[in-house]
């Protein structure tokens, strides 16, 4: 983009399914800083049906709080910034207000090409409706949907049924490069036969990511009856997975088929200075930047109203899982379906009638913009957040959060930084609540900094980086993260009450604190924001502090935060007491320790 003026001020917007936020980033002295923010309800649905309406309202809030004129005649954004200080030099935006891309996945072998394609769908807001693998009958992808048995007619008969549901895209894979031909062609012909029958067939997108050698045949079969996109094979060999091509095409289709058709999107697009990204894409860019710049392993979880996104860089490899139908607003009902009432209620420190909890959860889904009015309501929504994180983590663990060391099998391997975002975390009344949700939901291991995207800026800064990397980097460094503190999470199990970790904390003012932390407990050690301390950790022989070896001690320097140092000696995997009274007492004990 050619600019004839210096870029010194920006509005950055994020349009979620429920909330739209706009922030003003401007030069303060010689540094780009977050100056003001506005937020309002997203206006993508009827009766508003125009996403830009909410963005304008959030901009007006920024106007009111800064006294700076940003909209001309209350309508058009003033760009570039004027001599009198009105306007800004550009606006960037991220969006996840669209409904998910509906996809059917068709392939040969469930555990190979089909699984790879399913992993590729994790990159964006995709709702996988049906999975068809030639080596089995037909199974729907989500655990909440019913497994449908074959009707005796074979996979061809089931295919007709499958394709009636009018997915936005059919993701077709199968065969290694140079490998099987006939079964892939059979699948393609099945798809083509059904698409040819429907008038709407031409409008259905088909992404082919199978045997490279089959491309001419696939084009011959599918080009006339679908909108065909051919990309690299997701399984070029049996032991190699290559998702980049499929992921790129799925993301592009989400932009084209869903995001681009959000009412008012065109108007918003006309305002922006850089291509609009999805919220997940923007967050991914920032995480990769953070990982590269600071040589970190980082994990972030965004718990939204309609979707939950887990992304990170571990060992230099970026991974991302978007659960497009799991959230704590619009999608809270799906969390209930997948986790079950017991799965939610187990996180409460008090007993709640299951029927009452069910009512409250359905009501939240019906009016996702409402906020908790009582402590009980708040903790129920936070319980749903834990479940949404855990369910998303379960998918991510089987796909990209692989642990190198056997000690962390089935766990999140140690990372340096864990970031939480989404209103259920960032607007939790107490920092300790957000910290506990992250610890319970993700169950990080080892020593890590816990932080929040408190200003809800990270995805937008990812988008801003393409226009002004310096502005994005400076705003990220100064205003991007709100430190909750440092978590020291022990892996292993032991005897309740036995000493799991001996800790010596040396503050920078010379004070020293020695603590023995029993297994099964949470312990908070004061260390305020901006302060650092040297921590010497001596775990008992049954526990690991993130070094991949039980009983091995270490000394490290840690950061303070709003909560402090949190020693999580509850063990990994975290096992809540089965018995209700005991479990609730334990949760109360943990909450008290965190000052809740």
């Amino acid at each position: 983009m050619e600019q004839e003026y210096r870029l010194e001020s920006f509005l950055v917007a994020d349009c979620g399914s429920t909330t739209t936020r706009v922030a003003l980033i401007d030069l303060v002295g010689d540094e780009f800083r977050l100056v003001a923010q506005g937020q309002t309800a997203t206006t993508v649905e009827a009766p508003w049906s125009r996403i830009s309406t909410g963005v304008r309202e959030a901009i007006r809030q920024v106007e009111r709080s800064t006294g700076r004129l940003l909209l001309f005649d209350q309508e058009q954004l003033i760009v570039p910034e004027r001599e009198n200080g009105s306007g800004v030099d550009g606006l960037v935006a991220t969006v996840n207000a669209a409904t998910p891309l509906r996809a059917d996945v068709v392939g040969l072998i469930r555990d190979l090409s089909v699984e790879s394609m399913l992993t590729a769908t994790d990159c964006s807001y995709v709702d996988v409706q049906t999975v068809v693998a030639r080596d089995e009958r037909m199974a729907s992808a989500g655990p909440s949907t019913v497994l449908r048995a074959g009707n005796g007619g074979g996979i061809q008969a089931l295919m007709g049924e499958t394709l009636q549901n009018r997915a936005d895209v059919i993701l077709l894979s199968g065969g290694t490069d140079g490998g099987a031909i006939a079964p892939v062609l059979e699948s393609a012909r099945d798809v083509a036969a059904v698409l040819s029958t429907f008038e709407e067939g031409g409008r259905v997108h088909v992404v082919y990511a199978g045997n490279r050698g089959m491309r001419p045949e696939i084009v011959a079969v599918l080009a006339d009856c679908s909108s065909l996109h051919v990309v690299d094979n997701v399984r070029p060999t049996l032991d190699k997975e290559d998702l980049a091509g499929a992921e790129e095409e799925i993301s592009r289709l989400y932009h084209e088929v869903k995001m681009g058709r959000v009412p008012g999107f065109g108007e918003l697009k006309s305002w922006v200075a850089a291509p609009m990204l999805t919220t997940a894409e923007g967050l991914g860019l920032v995480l990769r930047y953070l990982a590269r710049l600071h040589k970190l392993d980082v994990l972030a979880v965004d718990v939204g109203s309609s979707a939950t996104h887990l992304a990170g860089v571990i060992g230099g490899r970026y991974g991302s899982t978007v659960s497009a139908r799991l959230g704590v607003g619009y999608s809270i009902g799906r969390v209930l379906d997948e986790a079950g009432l017991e799965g939610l209620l187990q996180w409460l420190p008090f007993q709640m009638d299951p029927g009452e909890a069910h009512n409250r959860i359905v009501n939240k889904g019906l009016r996702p913009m409402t906020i908790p009015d009582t402590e009980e309501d708040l903790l129920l929504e936070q319980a749903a957040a834990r479940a949404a994180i855990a369910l998303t983590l379960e998918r991510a663990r089987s796909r990209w959060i692989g642990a190198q060391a056997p000690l962390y099998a089935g766990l999140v391997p140690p990372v340096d930084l864990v970031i939480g975002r989404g209103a259920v975390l960032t607007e939790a009344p107490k920092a300790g609540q957000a910290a506990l949700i992250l610890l319970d939901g993700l169950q990080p291991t080892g020593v890590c900094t816990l932080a929040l995207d408190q200003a809800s800026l990270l995805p937008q800064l990812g988008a801003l980086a393409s226009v002004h990397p310096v502005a994005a980097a400076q705003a990220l460094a100064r205003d991007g993260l709100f430190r909750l503190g440092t978590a020291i999470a022990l892996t292993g199990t032991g005897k309740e009450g036995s000493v799991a970790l001996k800790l010596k904390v040396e503050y920078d003012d010379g004070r020293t604190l020695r603590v023995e932390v029993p297994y099964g407990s949470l312990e908070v050690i004061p260390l305020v924001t901006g302060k650092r301390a040297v921590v010497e950790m001596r775990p008992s022989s049954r526990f690991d502090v993130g070094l991949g070896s039980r009983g091995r001690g270490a000394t490290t320097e840690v950061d303070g935060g709003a909560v402090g140092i949190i020693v999580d000696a509850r063990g990994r995997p975290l096992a809540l007491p089965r018995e209700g009274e005991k479990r609730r007492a334990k949760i109360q004990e943990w909450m008290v320790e965190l000052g809740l």
Partner: protein
Amino acid sequence: MVYHPFVTRVVPGMVMRRERMLPLRGEVLVSTGARVRPADVVARTQVPGEMRLLNVARALRLDDGDLSPYLRVSIGDAVEQGDVLAAGSGVSRLFGGTYRSPVSGVVGGASHGRVLIQSDRRPLELVAHYRGTVLNVMSGLGAIIEVRGALIQGIWGSDKAGFGVVKCMVDDPAQDLDPEAIDMSCRGSVLVAGRCPDESSLRRAKEMDVQGLVVGSLDAGLLDVVQAMPFPVVVTEGMGDYAISGPVFDLLRAYEGQEASVSGFTQPRGGAVRPEVIIYASFAGEGAEPETRPQFVLDLGSQVRIVRGPHTGKTGVVTHLSQGDGTPLGGSRVREIAIRLDGGEEALVAQPNLELFG
């Protein structure tokens, strides 16, 4: 004055446009300007039942998948189980190549070596559902009907539509629907009650051929049962134990005995659709306001309804727009609004827990 985007319409007289669309292309039976009644058929089509995709080419051992020389049926042909769909020739005939349909149905398509059989095709007749005038016809798809009446939007509904006479089953908006009170006089009616307490009320309503049920609340545990009922259920407040809002109940009472269309279809995202009751009161058309995009401004004197917390369902007017910085539980950026409830009581409510109402 504060921008406030949440609105529920409860209006005694309004001119509305409602779409009636076929799920598949078919035939529209009405023309622009026609007067329609709810039971009138406005469009019809054929919808397929089960689909069977038959890999005939493989059965006949045809490598290239081109079936056309061997097909013995055309698209649209009705076939019975055992009818020959394709017969081989040349080499394949040596293998006795005749393919017979394993099912009865209609040939829906034939390509790429496959034949698609649509079984159990059945006619679908789309009724007007509303009383009004056809404003526009979309050829082969459906019609837009202009409707005049009272509008009450709900928050949840079962995916059904119905039409009947409004009948209030309770005197108090907090009162439960009594299954004993549902008798033959309820046949064809749209029943109104404060709350639907249990399954027995629903089953009784089904037995009495009720055409719809409007309640303030019901238990979420009943949702599956409600969805299985043949009539629509519209919930105005939410799940749990909430009375119908006073103004909603008053409007329904005022129009008792009048005909109403009830639609329970609810779609929160991707083109939000809310459940609704439209009552054709004889005087509702007089001075009816057009259905335009509602105002989204919360100001002193605005009529609001509380949608979460202990006052859920209560209505009132805004008396003070707090400049305060938030509520103890709801996040730091949330404004609180002072409301004088209809009963005279004062309440302080977080702004997201309010909606403009009326």
